[in-house]
Structures are given as structure tokens and as C-alpha cells.
């Protein structure tokens, strides 16, 4: 019987010839990522060592990544103190993959990890962040865990008691119509599966649309797989994976391109014809409340957000700049752009995209999570509406439980910025 990609990766990570769905395993971790919630991980980590007489040293400082992104620069004294505590811990333990609030190294964790070549195909990646699913885009088995579980990983270098998950195969074929993007594929899929349709399962992406898709698009798909409840999204590595790692991430060492067997056993197979897709919108207050843009009616928008680990990359900013160049953001709409990393920021600056967006009336923010999780940098007023390329629209998500958040692709966000109402970018904007 053939094996899914996750069964193969978990077999390798546990040194077993093979594992099957339902087995309980203890895989060795290649990358363990945290952000500001590292402050809680540190507490729990020290707690593990309490009374043992052993010196609390992390298992491998070269495999731990800590990236400041959720509240940068710090919005409160409390956050600043957490960040300070983490910096001191990083220095004391010699943690290598640390990215501080700096223009030469900073950004959102799920962008920093791939961009710096920290993720390889076949890796086991865990992060104290649910969108750790993103890194499946490079063929890793990558999933979110809580802070206490991370403390356990820092101690032992393994994840305890992991159940080998079943896999849903999603096959996407056909050419995406103009101005329809990977974001529309994943929103459509979440609408189809529901917010719990993939709970405790992995989504494996196949088909020629995926094969032709850039790593940026694959990151968008895997990133939002968790919105259908998936433990992870994963794209079997191929020549695009290799190109990205070599050319963009500067990886030089040998790659272990683990791919699923042709006769692997899947729990469900879902087929999507990309050529038939229209731009999709997730309506308040759940991500699976998905409609195509022409079914939305007239929704006035107060704030447009382009950014986040889902859609804050160079191709996302490029499409927004292309649509907005020489135009204006509607007078009573505000538009915020958060490049996902400073590397992307600098590229967008060099290519003139940022200037085009500024001239149109957009505000360029510093890279980081920004208003995505509702802490700072763009809260909504009561009864206001946000249209956002981020990944969650739960009540209160962008800082105000009395506001509405709609989710969309960068093209929809840019077209809607001009009209001030949710608009279909394919209709052209006059």
C-alpha cells in the first residue's frame, strides 16, 4: 500500500521503516518556531526543569527560531517587556534563528522562515502559531502547537504523542482566469469543506494548477488550510520548490524531495476546476462563509488591508500597485499595506510599487502582523467594515467585536479601494 507524504515524512522523522494513520509517534523536530508568545514558552520551559536539578538548556539552539512580528514595534509596556525577556533568553541560550524588529532581518514569522531558507522538504516544523501550516508549501510537515507543547519540544527535541493524521487529497486543474488567484482557490475550498471539514487531517495539494503555481501562491494555500481545520496543508516538492529554495532562499545543501506514492490511500479526494473560479469573499464572521464576489451585493468598505502571512508578498503588492497606479483610493476609505517582510518592503520600494500605492492614497505600514490579529495599527470603529487579504474574520479579530471583516484576494482589495465598495476586479474600474 502506498504512503501519503505525511506518512513518509513521519516515518523518516521517527527512524521507522513505515508508519500508518492512527499510529502514535514521537517525531524529531527540524525547526521550532515562536514569536512574542515565546515569553510564555520560556515560563513553561523553566517550569519543566523545576525540581529536576538539571540546568535548563534548550535541546538545540540552531533549530529554534524566534521572530518578533505580532506586535512590532511594541504597542504596550507589557509587550515590550515580553520582547525584552525573550531577547535575554535568546542571548543566554545562543538561539540562532532570531529576527528582531529590524529593517535588515525582520518580518512575519511565516515569511521569514521560507525566505531565509530555514524550511526544507521533508522537515518536521512546529510553531506556536496556527498558521504554521504555511510551510507545507515547501514540502515540510508543518503544524501549530501551543506554548506548553513548545516548551516540551525545546526540552526534548521531539513532539510527544503525535497521531499520524489521515489525508485529504485536493486536486486543482485548469488555468486560473485573469485576476483570480490562489487566495480564491483556498477560500473556495474552505467554503466547500467548512471550518471543521479537515479537522485532524492533512490536506495534500495536487494537480497542474498547483504544479504551475509559484511558491508564494502555495504559501497562501497552505497558510489557510488551517481555516478548514487541517493540521497542515502540504504541496509535494517539485522543480518550483527547488527553484525557490536555491534562487530565492539561497539554500545550497542537498534536498530530500520526499513525495507521496502514486497509490497512497486518501480519506477523501476533492477536485477543483480553477478555470471556473470567480473571485471569492469570506463574509463575517466565519472563514467558511464564502460567496463569489458577484453574490455580495453592495457592501461599503471603511478600511482595506493588504498584508499578513497570507497575502503580503511581492506578487500581492505588485497586483495592488498595478491596479491602483494613477488612480485614487476612494475618499472615505482608508487603505493599509503591510509588506510581509522587510525584504519584500525593499523590493516593492525598488520596483516603485510603494510609491504608486502612496500616490493613490494608501498608507504603507512597517512589516509585521499589523491589524491582522486586532492588537494595534488599524483597529476598526463600531459598525465599520474591513476588507482584508488576511486569513481570519472572526468577531473581534481586527480589534473590535462590533465591526465586520470580509476576506479577499489582493486584486479584489485593490479594485474595491478605488470604488469604496466590495468590487470585482475583472469588471475593470473606471
Amino acid at each position, binding site marked *: 500500500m502506498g504512503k501519503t507524504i505525511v506518512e513518509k515524512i513521519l516515518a523518516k522523522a521517527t527512524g521507522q521503516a513505515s508508519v500508518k494513520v492512527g499510529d502514535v509517534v514521537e517525531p524529531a523536530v527540524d525547526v521550532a518556531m515562536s514569536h512574542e508568545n515565546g515569553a510564555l514558552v520560556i515560563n513553561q520551559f523553566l517550569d519543566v526543569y523545576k525540581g529536576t536539578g538539571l540546568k535548563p538548556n534548550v535541546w538545540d539552539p540552531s533549530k529554534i527560531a524566534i521572530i518578533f512580528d505580532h506586535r512590532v514595534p511594541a504597542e504596550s509596556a507589557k509587550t515590550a517587556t515580553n520582547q525584552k525577556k525573550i531577547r535575554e533568553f535568546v542571548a543566554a541560550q545562543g538561539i540562532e534563528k532570531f529576527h528582531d524588529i529590524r529593517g535588515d532581518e525582520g518580518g512575519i514569522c511565516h515569511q521569514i522562515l521560507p525566505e531565509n531558507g530555514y524550511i526544507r522538504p521533508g522537515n518536521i516544523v512546529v510553531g506556536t502559531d496556527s498558521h504554521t501550516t504555511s510551510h507545507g508549501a515547501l514540502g515540510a510537515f508543518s503544524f501549530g502547537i501551543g506554548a506548553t507543547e513548545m516548551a516540551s519540544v525545546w526540552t526534548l527535541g521531539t513532539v510527544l504523542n503525535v*497521531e499520524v493524521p489521515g489525508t485529504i487529497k485536493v486536486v486543482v486543474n485548469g488555468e486560473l482566469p485573469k485576476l483570480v488567484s490562489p487566495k480564491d482557490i483556498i477560500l473556495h475550498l474552505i467554503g466547500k469543506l467548512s471550518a471543521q471539514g479537515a479537522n485532524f487531517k492533512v490536506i495534500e495539494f495536487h494537480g497542474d494548477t498547483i504544479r504551475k503555481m509559484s511558491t508564494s501562491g502555495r504559501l497562501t494555500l497552505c497558510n489557510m488550510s488551517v481555516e478548514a481545520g487541517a493540521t497542515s496543508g502540504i504541496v509535494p516538492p517539485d522543480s518550483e520548490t527547488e527553484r525557490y529554495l536555491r534562487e530565492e532562499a539561497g539554500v545550497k545543501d542537498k534536498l530530500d524531495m520526499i513525495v507521496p506514492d502514486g497509490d497512497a490511500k486518501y480519506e477523501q479526494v476533492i477536485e477543483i476546476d480553477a478555470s471556473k473560479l470567480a473571485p471569492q469573499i469570506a463574509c463575517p464572521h466565519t472563514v467558511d462563509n464564502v460567496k463569489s464576489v458577484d453574490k455580495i451585493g453592495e457592501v461599503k468598505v471603511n478600511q482595506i488591508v493588504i498584508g499578513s502571512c497570507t497575502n503580503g508578498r511581492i506578487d500581492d503588492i505588485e497586483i495592488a500597485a498595478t491596479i491602483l497606479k494613477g488612480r485614487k483610493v476612494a475618499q472615505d476609505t482608508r487603505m493599509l499595506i503591510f509588506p510581509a517582510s522587510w525584504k519584500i518592503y525593499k523590493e516593492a520600494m525598488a520596483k516603485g510599487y510603494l510609491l504608486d500605492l502612496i500616490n493613490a492614497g494608501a498608507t504603507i505600514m512597517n512589516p509585521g502582523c499589523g491589524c491582522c490579529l486586532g492588537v494595534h495599527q488599524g483597529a476598526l470603529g463600531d459598525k465599520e467594515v474591513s476588507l482584508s487579504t488576511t486569513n481570519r474574520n472572526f468577531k473581534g*479579530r481586527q480589534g473590535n467585536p462590533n465591526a465586520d471583516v470580509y476576506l479577499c484576494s489582493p486584486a479584489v482589495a485593490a479594485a474595491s479601494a478605488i470604488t469604496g465598495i466590495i468590487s470585482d476586479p475583472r469588471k475593470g474600474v473606471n
Partner: protein
Amino acid sequence: MKTKVVLKLGDDISTDAIYPGRFMATVLPTETPQYAFIDYKEFNTKLISKQIPANSVIVADNNFGCGSSREQAASTLKGWELIIVAKNYARIFLQNSCNLGLRTIICPIIEAKENDELEIKVTEIINLTSGKKFAIEPLPKARQDIIDAGGLIAYTRKKLLEKATVH
């Protein structure tokens, strides 16, 4: 154990609903309970004014705890020693709860309203108000091991000491 339903919720209750992102700079389990369900004003007020006794039950439908991995969502409920009875859970929330010792019961067919009296047994829940019985689905063994060890900190400590003696 006999207890009472203090809150009835529907599907897809996210960690943003249980513990909004705007309080994420607060991490200590001693400080997180004050923000439990803070956007559900009435319920939060009852918690803060200590009107809700330990072991009271929140009943929810499917996919309780979806969304973010924030552990505060589990520690904030653990802080009040609440018991969660849901049809099913999102993975990370369920794992966090087992790790921290928040009692989460899987009851795929539970029917209960606010103020119903429940009797929680090992394999079933009896709704004493309606007289109906509902089977409990056991937690997967992988998670039960962690609970039996007294939570993930204790479980990890045990493994750490085993490792230390081997080397």
C-alpha cells in the same frame, strides 16, 4: 458528578471569542482568567464576580476552539475550573486543554440548554433536566497519557529525567 450548564454555545467558537487577540500580551495563567469570553459581557461579568462555581459546564456544538493556537484560550477557562462539553474540538485547542488540564469532554450528540442540570459519568452524560442520556467519546489514547501524567509539563519532566539517566 452533578453540575449545571452555565453557557450554551453553537458551532465554530473561535479562540478569538474565548480569549480575544487584543489581550495576548497577557500570558500568565494567573492573569488570563479575567479575560475569558470578555466580549460575552454578561457571562464574563458573572465569572469575574465569582457567581460561577468550579466544575460548571459550557456546552458547545462542533469545532470548539477553532482558530489561533493561543494557549490563553485554554488557561483562561482552566483558571475558573470550567468543564467543556462539545460535539467536537479543533485540534490545537483540544491538545492545549489536555496539556494544561482543562477538562474537555467529547459528546457528539449532546443536547442541553443553559441552566440544565447534568450528571457527568465516565462514559455518559445524563441531562437531569430533560432525562436524556448522551454517550461520551473517549479521548484518543495519545492524549489520555498526558492527562494521566498530570499534564504535559509533568509528562515532559518525566521524559527528561528518563533521558538524563540513560546518558
